[in-house]
């Protein structure tokens, strides 16, 4: 595990370091989507580089991408003084959509690069090399040092632009967006657009909820970024998931958890009771009216507490269910064994003559269809139980929900 995930983790730390910092600025400036917009421009630059005959991995292609991102950065900086007439977010959105469309037009002329650019947007953090991480770290250390030296005007330009003369503001904005363009162009090459966006926004937003002051938020953002990177990578290993999307999901889960906790703080007993009654009423009505539709909440409960399902079957149905489950378990065990054997034959660990090996392969292919029959039996029993649950569970649920709502709303109207 460490052999494969060490460098992705270090890459995540490097990304956290610079992106949380830029994220705090970007949130203060209310230009959340500038990152996606500049990344899309960088992808357009790559497409143009391919059209000009440079391989997608080459230095030249990187500078093309950077040049396009810088142009977008300057444009965004130029628009800021006219905020009253034209919102910066509008320009950012337009740049995003138009550069994406232009990218399609350019790739139509140079189709050999299309897949590589698609991969670039998805990112390949799992296969990042130590050299790439070292280059990123060096570049971001330099940019970080520059921003540390010039911290006063840069922070003023982001957080209190009204205190700055217009011409100076333009200068510092241009510097800010140019260094940001360089960071985005470089990060996206390694981690992909989605992951880079998460590193930029999620830790900074969470830190904004939990702490105040620039330095405190930066430190907290770094801790959160590192922890979420680790969580995403471990989830990717344990649950066997593609790495980039798993880390993105870890960031999303953290954000959702924070939102839930914030909502829970505002929850009174009365509000929780109202929510629970409404949920019971809706679930009950759905179960009564559409018993055969997917009821994920009931499925989840039945998995956790099997008697909730078996109680609605008669003795012979229960016996069938047990037999089927056993048969599926046996088949699965046998399949795992044979599949391992087939793998060993393929990899030349075990000798087997070609005809026998082919028979094994075909048997495996057919066998997995056979256990589909067992699954059908289970589905049939499941839908039988649902027909009975329809009234025995659905009616009480509706009654509980309606009575609860009636009792809660009768006393006083919903105001507090």
């Amino acid at each position, binding site marked *: *595990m460490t052999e*494969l995930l060490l460098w992705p983790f270090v890459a995540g730390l490097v990304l956290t370091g610079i992106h949380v910092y830029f994220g705090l600025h970007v949130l203060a400036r209310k230009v959340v989507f500038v990152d996606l917009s500049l990344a899309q421009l960088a992808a357009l630059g790559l497409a143009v580089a391919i059209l000009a005959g440079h391989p997608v991995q080459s230095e030249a292609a990187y500078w093309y991408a950077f040049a396009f991102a810088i142009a977008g950065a300057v444009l965004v900086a130029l628009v800021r003084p006219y905020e009253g007439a034209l919102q910066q977010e509008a320009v950012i959105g337009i740049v995003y959509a138009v550069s994406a469309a232009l990218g399609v037009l350019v790739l139509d002329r140079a189709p050999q690069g*299309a897949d590589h650019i698609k991969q670039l947007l998805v990112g390949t953090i*799992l296969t990042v090399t130590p050299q790439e991480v070292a280059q990123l770290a060096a570049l971001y250390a330099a940019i970080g040092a520059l921003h540390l030296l010039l911290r006063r005007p840069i922070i003023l330009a982001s957080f209190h632009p009204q205190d700055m003369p217009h011409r100076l503001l333009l200068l510092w904005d241009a510097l800010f967006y140019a260094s940001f363009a360089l960071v985005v162009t470089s990060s996206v090459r390694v981690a992909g657009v989605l992951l880079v966006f998460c590193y930029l926004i999620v830790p900074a937003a969470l830190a904004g909820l939990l702490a105040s002051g620039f330095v405190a938020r930066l430190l907290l953002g770094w801790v959160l970024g590192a922890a979420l990177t680790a969580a995403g990578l471990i989830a*990717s290993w344990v649950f066997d998931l*593609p790495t980039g999307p798993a880390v993105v999901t870890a960031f999303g889960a953290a954000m959702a958890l924070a939102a839930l906790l914030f909502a829970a703080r505002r929850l009174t007993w009365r509000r929780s009771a109202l929510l629970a009654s409404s949920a019971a009423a809706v679930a009950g009505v759905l179960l009564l009216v559409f018993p055969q539709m997917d009821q994920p909440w009931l499925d989840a409960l039945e998995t956790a507490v099997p008697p909730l399902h078996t109680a609605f079957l008669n003795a012979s149905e229960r016996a069938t269910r047990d037999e089927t489950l056993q048969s599926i378990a046996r088949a699965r065990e046998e*399949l795992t064994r044979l599949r391992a054997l087939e793998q060993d034959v393929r*990899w030349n660990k075990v000798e087997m003559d070609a005809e026998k090996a082919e028979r094994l392969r075909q048997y495996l292919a057919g066998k*997995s269809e056979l256990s589909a029959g067992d699954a059908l039996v289970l589905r049939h029993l499941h839908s039988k139980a649902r027909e009975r649950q329809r009234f025995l569970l659905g009616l009480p649920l509706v009654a509980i929900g309606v009575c609860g709502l009636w009792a809660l709303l009768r006393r006083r109207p919903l105001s507090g």
Partner: protein
Amino acid sequence: MLAALVAAVSPSAQAQPQRLLIITTSPDLKSLVEAVGGDDVEVESIGQPEQDPHSIEIKPGQLVRVKQAAMLVKVGLDHEPWLARLPAVSATIVDASKAVPLLQTETPRLRTERKAHTHAYGNTHYWLDPKNAWPITASILAALTDLSPAHRATFEARREAFLSHLEARLTAWQTMLAPYRGARIVVIHDSWSYFADRFGLKIVAAAEPNPGVPPSPGELAALLGRLRDSDVRLLVADPHSDPSLVRQIAEKGGVKPVTLLPSGRDYVALFDENVRRLLQALKSGQ
């Protein structure tokens, strides 16, 4: 179709022979149609060799040509999902897969525990076995003779000539690769089964469990572990494979990466090139 037919056989067209317009979805099929049709046909391919055949966005000019065409030749199965969205065409549609013996047809909808290749009707990369040029050109020949019965003899003669040339080349390719018969290889994407079968290579694993979805760390670790204590020395990548994935497997698994071309403008040259690349990699990998 009728217009094209009339144009093809009417006396006025004989003075300045009007060529049948035939559209193919891939350049490989274009090459095969030209091998049978020769000067009597004008063939255009919608897809280019560098393009992903699954996600082609058809342009207005191509749409006009499809409407004018007398015949449309497709790879078939579910290789060209975009084709289903075309408005109704009057051309004869030739499914080149019709008479081809397919591999991995049991990759079906019910097989949930095992990650199936997305193609539901079997592996679609059948043109990568030169022997499949026989059934493919047979389907093309039948459709062409229907459209232009007068040219039957010429079509048949051209097909014979092409196939005997291909047969000679195939023997040469097989002789060149004979020392490596039975070599075990790993592929990035599951598109080389037909090719491997014909040339006696054994594919032991595909790195991408599903095309376009990068492997999870667990899958990658399992593959690298298997590779290290095996005799597999060659990794076959496609031009659109993720370069960083190829590099990582090559470095950590100790295999020689080689990029083979799944599609080309000249059918015979495509195999010449692939066999050349393969030989070079096999020689240096030993």
